[in-house]
Structures are given as C-alpha cells and as structure tokens.
C-alpha cells in the first residue's frame, strides 16, 4: 500500500477537519448573524460559480503579475547589491524601510496615484513579494564556500562566469525558500490592493467588500475560501517547481 493511502497518513487530517466543521456549525447555529452555515457557503459557491471564478481569475492575475514584477526586480537588484558594495549601501536601507512600512497604509495612496485599474494592485503585490526575494537572493549569492571560489579564482574565472556557474545555482535554494513565502503572500497583496480601491469592479477582495457591505455573509466566506484555495495552489505550484529544480539539494532528500 502506498504511504498516502494508509489511514495513519490521512486520518488525523480528516478528524481535524471534521472537528473544525462541527465547531463551525455549532457556532453558526448559535450566532447566525456572525457566521453563515457551511451549507449556505456551499450553495452560493454553486449558484454563482461563474461570478466567483471570474473574480478569482482577476485576483490570480494580479497576484501572478505582481509576483513576476516584484520577484524579477528583487532578483536583479539582489544580484546588484551582492556584486557591488556601492549598490548595497544605496539600496538596502531603502529596501528595509520599504519593508517595515505597512503595505495596507501604502495601498490607498497608490490607488490615488494610479487609479482603480491594475497598476496599483500590481505595485502592492510586487512590493509585498519584493523584500523576501531580495534578501534571500543576496544572501544566497554569497553562500558559495570559499574553497570553491578559490578553485575558480586560480583559473581566473570572470565575474560573470562566477556569477553564472557558481553564485546563481548556490542561491537557488535560498531563492526558493523566499518563493515559498511570497507565492501565497502575493494573494494577500492583491486582496489588500482590491480592498483599498473602493471603486474597483473586479477581484475577490472587491467581492468581499461588496458582499460585506450588503451583509451577505455566505458570499464573504465563499470568497475567503477561494482565496485560501488560491494560496494553497500557489504554494503547491512552487513546491513542485522546487522539487524539479532542486533535486540535488539536501532539503529535497527524504
């Protein structure tokens, strides 16, 4: 029998989910104005499947767009700051300040500046993805053991060759550690941006603020459930990618 089919593998989770479900239903029965019954959430998901799907796609696009934007620029800047001390001194303090500034506070300002279109959402998502990738890339690029660097210095490997053959592959495990954080986080960025743009028309964040203003609790929780699913799928995607690319790394051996 495969390990995943054995009851000891799936039973704990099933029991946990059942317990949580029962607790939920008990709460929903006592406080119907605070918590919708699971059945109501299911019903709205089935009845308005098209509505949720199209909004989920919008949010997913924003998340992925911001991910590419923030991830790529963070990687490029990570290479710059690890290669050039001047760049590190100029950029890192700014990046740190940007990171500790609450994004929820920046988002409304961005909406004012860039309107209700995709731009502020991409920027907020990009910003939220930026810092973990930047830090891990710049640490990973410097993680090449000294003896390795010395071997290739004695054959006069150029800076670019050292970067390409030694530093970037060494940085990959660090990069993936960051991606496992920012892939699910990108959904957070997209939703925060949608919630801050009161006039925007699409996305699950917008769906949540619309539904809660109309007191449609089931729709709120349906959107939340889809957001959780989106985040999980993104995490799954990055894990599969990591397994393919980092099969050599010790974290991948069972």
């Amino acid at each position: 029998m495969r390990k995943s089919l054995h009851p000891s593998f799936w039973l704990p989770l099933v029991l946990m989910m059942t317990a949580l479900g029962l607790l939920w239903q008990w709460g929903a029965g006592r406080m119907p104005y605070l918590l919708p019954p699971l059945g109501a959430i299911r019903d709205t998901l089935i009845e308005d499947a098209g509505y949720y799907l199209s909004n989920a796609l919008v949010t997913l696009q924003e998340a992925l767009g911001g991910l590419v934007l923030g991830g790529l620029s963070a990687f490029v800047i990570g290479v710059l700051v690890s290669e050039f001390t001047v760049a590190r001194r100029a950029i890192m303090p700014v990046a740190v300040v940007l990171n500790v500034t609450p994004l929820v506070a920046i988002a409304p300002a961005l909406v004012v500046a860039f309107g209700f279109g995709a731009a502020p959402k991409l920027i907020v998502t990009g910003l939220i993805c930026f810092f973990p990738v930047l830090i891990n890339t710049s640490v990973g690029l410097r993680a090449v053991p000294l003896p390795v660097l010395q071997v290739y210095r004695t054959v006069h490997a150029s800076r670019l060759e050292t970067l390409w053959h030694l530093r970037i592959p060494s940085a990959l495990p660090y990069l993936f550690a960051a991606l496992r954080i920012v892939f699910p986080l990108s959904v957070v960025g997209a939703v925060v941006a949608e919630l801050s743009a009161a006039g925007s028309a699409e996305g699950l964040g917008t769906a949540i603020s619309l539904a809660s203003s109309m007191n449609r609790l089931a729709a709120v929780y349906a959107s939340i459930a889809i957001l959780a699913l989106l985040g999980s799928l993104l995490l799954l995607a990055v894990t599969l990618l990591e397994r393919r690319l980092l099969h050599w790394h010790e974290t991948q051996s069972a």
Partner: protein
Amino acid sequence: MSAEAIRVNRVRRVYDIGSGGSLTALDDVSLTIPAGTFVSVIGPSGCGKSTLLRVIAGLEQPDGGEVHVGGVTPAQAAERKMLGLVPQTPALLPWLSVLKNVSLPAKVNRSAGRKRRTASGTGGPDMVELLRKAGLHDVMHKLPSQISGGMQQRAAIVRAFGLHPDVLLMDEPFSALDEFTREALQEQLLDLWDELKATVLFVTHSVSEAVRLSDRIVVMAPHPGRITDVLDIDLPRPRGQAILKTAQFHRYEDLVRDRLRGAFQGAAS
C-alpha cells in the same frame, strides 16, 4: 616552460590580528622548485605552510618579496590557466554530476584554455578518460552527495589535473580521509602525476605522506613562519604500497620527524 616552476623570493606575509597585534605567517621565505618535481611542505600548525600555498596561488598578496610561477606572477599564471588548486575540502558543486564538476574549469576563461592547447599542440583534456583512470568511471553521472568522501576528493584531484596545469597546488587534500583511503589515493595521485608531469606543491602534516610522495620535503617552523630544512627524498619510483615497509622509507620518515621536532622545539624555546 622554464626550468624553475616556482620561485619564492624573500616573501613576508603578516596578518593583522587586531588590538595592534600582528602574526608573521611568513618571514623572509625563499624557495625554488624545479619544473616537474613533487615537493611537499610540512610543519606544525601555524607555520605558514598553507599561507605559502595561497600566496603562490595568487589568493593572497605577500607583504614583501616576490613570487614567480613559470616566470610570471601568480595573477598572470592564473590568467593563463597555468595553475591547478586542490583545496582541503573537495569543493565540488552539489548540483553538478561528477563529470560536469570536473569539466567546469574548462568552461571558464576559455580563451586562455585555447591558447594553452594551441601552444602544447594537444586537444582538450579527455575528462572521461581521466575519471576512468581515477576509478570514477562508474560514478561520473552521480552527484557529489551520492559518492564517498574519498571519491569526492579524487574528483577534486581529477578536476585540477584536467586543466593540464604547469603547477598543481594541493592544500592537505587527504587530511579528512581515513588511513586506508589516504594511502590508496596517494598511489592514484602518483599515477596521475607520473602521466601528466606537473610540478606539485603539496602541503601536508603527515610525515609518511610527505616521504612517499615527494622528491623534496620543505620543513617549516612557526613564530614566525619560516623554512628550517629542505630534504631530498631519494627513493625509487614508482612508489607502490610495498615501499611503505622498506627500511629506507623508515629512515627518511625518522629523518623528517627529527627535523620537525627540531623545528618545533626551536619555536618553543
């Protein structure tokens, strides 16, 4: 190639150890190594033997004196791909197979590699053949983490020999291995060296290793780091396992040990 592979002339290297103190790792060290010889450097820890190797490799700049490798500075020697380095740890890249690991040095600084091949009139090194000679043929498509420590160190040696370097610099490459593996690797190293004829500078702290491998042993002493003795080892080659038991071999071991003790006590007094 000039007859002198390595010339170290009155080299000083001083480390700053903070709070105004300093450590003289190399004090007025001079050494000439003829091309094609196998020279070991031996001495107690802190005698500057690894520093000497790093200065010759161009990884550290001397604070005084000069170093020439094949008539040029270490930096120029590196530019021309005349050097091969085997560090204390194998320093293989964990994401590349053994074959790709030993082939990577050929892929960097290509123009120097081309010039060397044109000058010598030979083709590129056949890494598969070298791996076969080192007994790594069966594992060449495996990752470093999938082979033993002894095999990893052999791969590191093949990587260095694959460059067909004029000068091979080895920094205690066998120190992390068990006795049996070490002796087997010494024999393979001698076989490879016999075939590819490079000048070897071999840093070690094992007396029997130094005697077995070397044409000449340089004894160093610490505080300050300096050369106290240069001994020629006049044993017949090839030096298989059998030579380890001969009386002549033991006499050389005792001699080196004596000189080492002298170096140590001289430092203590």
